[in-house]
């Protein structure tokens, strides 16, 4: 376990370093953010002053060196646009995105697994076929379009749910959370469902495939022959076995939901991290872009780590120390 941990940590440091260098050079190559930030009415001297104030007049390697030095002390720089520490801006937005991601994951698990199990258990029934047909829609409809349709139906025509933004928040353990207010839930429901749709389809398909495969296995026949109730066979023995691929995929998907819920957050004006990264890219706000991607990478590394541990819990045959990466 310890060896596994240390190896993982060292890999993480290398990945983070490479990542920061690539992003830094990449954003530098795109252009100079001052052109976007500064008022068009500013004269040449004012422009030069602003460039100097943001440290953009230094050569690239020097800018990167300053960044590295500060990064080692935990300071990832100040946003060019907002003037506040990049890390603080991202952390401010994190609760909103985490809320959305957890709600979307919750919906896709709570709906996806039972439906997938049913479709795997009764593949030829009408219900099973309908579920599979529905999951194809979940895969193939673009999130952008579905989001707008959800707004048109539930916000504009029916007027049941609000169309934009986040609801009232309450402070819980220092975080601004909206899942504890009714108003917050009404705002959360549409974007969470929109985000969940694709994952839901994925979970349904994985669960169904696992279900069909496992039902034919010897251990199921044996369990049945032993006289176990069908409920126990399916919900204890089969379920445990089909969860391994589902957990792997959900782990990776959770990462991508948190980091790249860009489309959904934009359509619903959800003040989360996805919207932040898009705005920052448009403004070439390099400190925020770099900090954001560093956080994202750390998050993926952490999620993969948790997934590996979950494997060993679900399947005792998997030993952590045998895992190479």
């Amino acid at each position: 376990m310890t060896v596994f941990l240390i190896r993982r940590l060292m890999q993480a440091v290398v990945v983070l370093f490479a990542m920061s260098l690539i992003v830094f050079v990449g954003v530098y190559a795109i252009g100079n953010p001052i052109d976007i930030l500064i008022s068009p009415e500013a004269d040449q001297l004012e422009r030069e002053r602003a460039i100097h104030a943001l440290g953009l007049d230094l050569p690239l390697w020097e800018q990167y060196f300053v960044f590295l030095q500060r990064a080692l002390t935990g300071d990832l720089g100040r946003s060019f646009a907002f003037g506040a520490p990049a890390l603080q801006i991202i952390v401010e937005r994190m609760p909103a995105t985490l809320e959305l991601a957890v709600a979307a994951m919750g919906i896709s698990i709570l709906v996806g697994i039972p439906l997938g199990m049913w479709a795997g258990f009764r593949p030829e029934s009408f219900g099973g076929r309908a579920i599979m047909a529905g999951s194809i829609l979940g895969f193939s409809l673009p999130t952008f379009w579905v989001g707008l349709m959800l707004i048109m139906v539930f916000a504009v025509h029916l007027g049941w749910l609000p169309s934009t933004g986040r609801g009232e928040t309450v402070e819980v353990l220092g975080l601004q959370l909206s899942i504890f207010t009714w108003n917050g839930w009404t705002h959360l429901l549409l974007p969470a469902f929109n985000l969940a749709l694709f994952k839901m389809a994925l979970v349904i398909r994985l669960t169904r495939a696992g279900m069909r495969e496992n039902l034919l296995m010897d251990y199921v026949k044996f369990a049945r022959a032993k006289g176990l109730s069908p409920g126990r066979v399916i919900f204890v023995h089969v379920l445990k076995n089909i969860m391994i691929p589902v957990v792997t995929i959900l782990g990776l998907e959770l990462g991508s939901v948190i980091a790249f819920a860009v489309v959904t957050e934009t359509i619903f004006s959800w003040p989360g991290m996805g919207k932040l990264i898009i705005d920052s890219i448009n403004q070439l706000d390099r400190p925020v872009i770099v900090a954001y991607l560093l956080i994202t990478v750390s998050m993926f590394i952490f999620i993969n780590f948790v997934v590996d541990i979950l494997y060993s819990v679900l399947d005792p045959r998997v030993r952590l120390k045998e895992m190479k990466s």
Partner: protein
Amino acid sequence: MSIFARGAFVMVISAVSAGTAGAADLTIGLGGAVSAMDPHYHNVATNNMVNRHIFGRLVDQDAKQTLMPDLAESWKAIDDTTWEFKLRRGVKFHDGSDFDAKDVVATLKRIPSVVNAPSSFRIFTGQITETVVVDSHTIRLKTATPFPLMPVFMAGFAIISDEFETATTDDFNSGKAAIGTGAYKLKQYVRGDRIELTRYDGYAGTKPAWENVTIKQVTNPAARVAALLSGDVQIIDQVPTADLERLKKDKKIGVSSVVSNRVIYLSMDTNRDQSPFVTAKDGKPLAKNPLKDVRVRKAMSMAINRPAIVDRVMEKQAIPAAQFLPETFFGTSKNLKVEKFDAEGARKLLAEAGYKDGFAITLHSPNDRYPNDEKIAQAVAQMLSRIGIQTKVEAIPFATYSPRATKLEFSFMLWGWGSGTGEVSSPLRSLVATYDREKGNGPSNRGRYSNPKVDELLATALRTVDDAARAKLLAEASEAAIFDVAVIPLHYNINNWATRAGFSYEPRTDESTLAMGVKAAKR
């Protein structure tokens, strides 16, 4: 259902809908992004628009950008280099302290000292060499050279209380220092999401209609329209042109429009002998840069069918342009008319200049900056190709476009210019005055156009304190530049706002969306 029951049902419904949003509350769906509550941090239209709710200025601009007294009751030039501002008495900041000359002094001191400002407000105060406090409500601003634009520039920045002269941007964002004299107090600023305001009862001017105002950032156009249709917001700005017709037909929605101070124009490299994106049709370099010849530029202008672009590409949300600003603005010329579309004449003129077979050129354009920018460029390219100038369009995101253009990498470009000052010296000085770093002339002159006559007229105008004489000089400078086709003006954008029924908005030429301008319409 009996009549009584139905009546009760209706009453319940209306009570419920009234409960969701109080009668005197307003929510605005804003297309732009706001970067700070510090009014001296980032000189950008959306920030200025939001901080106008909270802070007063010495001089205000009305919906047509005409100067209005605000914290200064009156102003006059007492000699060539001194302006005197009489301050309004009895004005109180949100925290109850009195407004007087020391607050103006504190503001002028703070503006150049804001750290990390990506776009400083120093451009409005840099000309002031000395500030003299005559008495508690009179202040004199001295400049090195005559400076007729002083009142216009004083409309550019917010006045803060002297208590917060050394406050940081964070102090303003948290609301601690966001204490102004404006019609609204800052309740909460949630970065990237919304700004909540409450009415300030001690406001010196006209009391606004709305008690609580929420300004929500809804940057996605489709989402903004949906938010309006669903009633989440009562007014939106930057209405997408594609949705406009539908919204106008909707009985629950009202639309208000006005021509803006923003001109969309084409800029050409008129300086270099060899321009990077101008070649012969076979790709070989030309002997000299055809864009240096005024006949070629004139022919290009004549070849563009502006009414067609306005009709088809802009879906009528623009007006063909003849100069830098619509005629109603200060310093515009009455003699300039929209260039008439004349492909035949253009071809002749081109032949006369020695380009009978035309040449090849690349038109660079942003694709995310101005309404329909890329489509306009495509239309222009087709029109120019018809007179033999083979035009290719390269449309790229503004984040890449603008830095490359500033490095003079392009030959032919599409740009827009909004005059924040509401008069013609702003585009003349930035776009067509000869590039001069020391004098601050031509910072956005990316074709490096240079015409001594324009420079001379503009320089004289900028020294002339008398308004009528200055307007005449600016008009002459505009004429000199346009006759020489310094740039090719295409059209002025129209600004649109859409409101729910029961609300109306007085449209503003400066593109601002102000809660003070939203009225409860009579049904």
